[in-house]
């Protein structure tokens, strides 16, 4: 901003005329904006993202996210490795919800093979794993958001449950974070004996602990004061920016891919009314504020438990992998399949020309669009609110940068 040299205006010139006709004098005080770097390294576990902020005192006047610190050329690699070899790369974009990534990629490739039949047990296990991973991902979102706000304890409680979930996944596929378990045609191998019973026990214990989380953090007066009316995203802005998932539902838009454009077993679940979709209601402040998004995520965990229980009641023994050849050549075509990731709509656009290697694997990561909203949301907020807003977008930089 161009600043006039101090003292160049007379006192008369500096006066403003108010609507009432009075003249208001003000001193020629200039405060320069401070440019602060919310750098690539910061303790909030969102990953490596850099936001260049301009702040006038405590109020932010401009924000510019800089990405690319975790860009690992996943899309280029997709054009150079075979179809099945690409699966471990899919784990690594949203590493907190890797099962969902595997699911999205597998479903996109399966859409190009219309004759392929997946056994029912494969669908069941896929759904159980995806929903358990959704719970795990939301636990991290909730725990680290508490950490950002200053509540140190809910983080540990959330990780206690997440450890159990990761132990469950370790039993079924051998890995704790990046699973490569949900493959094209089904899942890799069957659940070991006793696994399903342990999942049932996990659901029971989780329900009690969930009440603790709500009481300890979500309904805590200080937390509400920090997050209500902060970072309000009105409905039109959310749709215009392409937000999906809890970001969209927190703004009051009742849309969930699992219910509204069902895939896998979700269509059947609709008939049994197995789960609800949690939509923000503006309970503690304006509709679309950070509290609403946190509310959506925390309450969605209970809905995932309901889905897991639904699957546990109906699962039958059987094969878990469909009939796919060892050397996979996918018929030519293009398909876009979007599934409901914990962070929003994870879309895979896959193009094949009939060969062993894809022509294009495009990953539409929800965090990429979720971060873009920060450019318009941060200006006007206080610096302390910036933390609350960035935490509520629940970005995972692996997904933003791929």
């Amino acid at each position, binding site marked *: 901003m161009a600043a006039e040299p101090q003292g160049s205006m007379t006192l008369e010139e500096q006066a403003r005329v108010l609507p009432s006709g009075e003249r208001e004098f003000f001193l020629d005080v200039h405060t320069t904006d*401070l440019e*602060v770097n*919310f750098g690539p390294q*910061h*303790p*909030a576990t969102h990953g490596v993202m850099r936001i260049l902020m301009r702040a006038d005192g*405590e109020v932010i006047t401009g924000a510019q996210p800089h990405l690319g610190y975790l860009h690992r050329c996943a899309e280029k690699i997709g054009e150079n490795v075979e179809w099945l070899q690409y699966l471990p790369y899919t784990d690594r974009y949203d590493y907190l919800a890797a099962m969902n990534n595997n699911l999205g990629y597998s479903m996109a490739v399966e859409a190009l093979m219309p004759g392929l039949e997946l056994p029912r047990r494969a669908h069941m296990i896929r759904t159980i794993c995806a929903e358990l991973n959704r719970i795990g991902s939301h636990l991290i979102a909730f725990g680290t958001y*508490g950490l*950002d*706000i*200053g*509540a*140190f*304890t809910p983080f*540990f*409680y959330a990780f*206690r449950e997440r450890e159990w979930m990761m132990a469950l996944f370790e039993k079924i596929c051998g890995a704790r974070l990046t699973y490569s378990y949900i493959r094209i045609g089904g899942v890799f191998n069957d659940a070991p004996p006793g696994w399903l019973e342990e999942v049932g026990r996990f659901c029971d214990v989780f329900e009690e602990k969930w009440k603790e989380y709500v009481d300890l*953090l979500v309904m*805590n007066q*200080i*937390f509400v*004061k*920090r997050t209500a009316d902060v970072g309000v995203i009105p409905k039109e802005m959310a749709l215009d920016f392409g937000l999906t998932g809890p970001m969209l539902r927190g703004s009051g838009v009742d849309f969930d891919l699992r219910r509204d454009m069902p895939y896998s077993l979700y269509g059947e679940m609709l008939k049994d009314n197995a789960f609800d979709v949690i939509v923000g209601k503006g309970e503690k402040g304006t509709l679309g504020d950070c509290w609403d998004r946190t509310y959506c995520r925390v309450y969605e965990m209970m809905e995932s438990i309901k889905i897991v229980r639904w699957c546990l009641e109906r699962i039958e023994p059987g094969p878990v992998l469909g009939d796919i050849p060892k050397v996979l050549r996918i018929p030519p075509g293009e398909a876009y399949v979007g599934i409901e990731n914990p962070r929003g709509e994870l879309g895979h656009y896959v193009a094949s020309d009939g060969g062993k290697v894809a022509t294009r694997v495009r990953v539409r990561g929800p965090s990429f669009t979720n971060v873009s909203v920060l450019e318009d949301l941060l200006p006007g907020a*206080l*610096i*302390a*609110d*910036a*933390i609350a807003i960035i935490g509520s977008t629940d970005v995972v930089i692996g997904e933003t940068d791929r």
Partner: protein
Amino acid sequence: MDGGNIFLTLLQKIAPAGVPSWVLVLSACLVGIGILVGLVSVLVMFAVWLERKVSGHIQCRFGPMYAGGWHGWAQSLADGIKLLAKEDLIPLGADAALFVLAPAIMLAAIFGAMAAMPLAPSVYFANLNLGLFAILAMSSMTTIGVVMAGWASNSKWALYGAMREAAQVVAYEIPLGISLLVPLMVIGTLNLGEASARQAGWFGMHWVLFQNPFVLPASILFFTASLAETKRAPFDLPESESELVAGFMTEYSGIRWSFFFLEEYAAMFLMSVVGAVFFLGGFESPFTHIARESFGSDSVAYQVVAGGTLMTKAMFGVFLMMWIRWTLPRVRIDQVMSMGYKYLTPLALLCVLGAGIWEAIFPGATP
């Protein structure tokens, strides 16, 4: 109670005849300082260990378990040795003189405040008749150190932390002081030892807390204001937040960084002692009463029991501060300021008004 210093008295007894008195006074001061610094250091090491244990158990984990064997009691010692061995870093572009001076000023302020604190009825460093006033005055000098640290670090985030700290501490000095007027009205003296003595009696019925219905709200206000003064959660914006790097302490490492923590735990302890003396009876408890009756006021046993009572009460206050830190999230700076000025200060004034009216209507037993 004599106006002298116990160390001076002891030195006068054991010194050879020809030594001039100024040498004795100087030595007494040095001995006192040495004991104070040593005591506070040990206390702080214990408090750090306690914090880690308390936080661990609240968070469903154990805390330190290895260093030293039994529940990691030597963890703070090990950390202290590690910090001593670290490189002494002064960032490029930082104002080196202020950078080095800032933790020194904070420590000097807090140790100066602790000089007015008695360890036992006859063991004190300075029996000040203006004890409480001195403590409040000296402990508020730590703000200078914080602002110096933030400015001298040559880092924007440190500066933010320092500015917030200055605003917060100044804002909460007011309810801190005003809420302390209430027990003063009841007890009538600023001298910590004397204030304790006036609460003597069986089963704590003479504690200030039970003398006047307005003391309870005043004590809660005092506790809240002391949390803000010592920069503890939920008011720990200056150190923990500033965008989650360490606030005004960002550029400090090694032993200088540990000075800030020494100051923080010493301040916590000091505030707890003030609260214990002026609200919870100080040295007095049924055990001290029994000790005084059985062994007499001059005996060592009585001193030990009285000192132990004060320590227990102070440690309970410290534990309460830690408990709250690990339970509640942080309050934002503008909410902190509005809470201090718009809610705590008027409430404190109301308590003073009410306590004064109560004392006028029902004059207490204390002179």
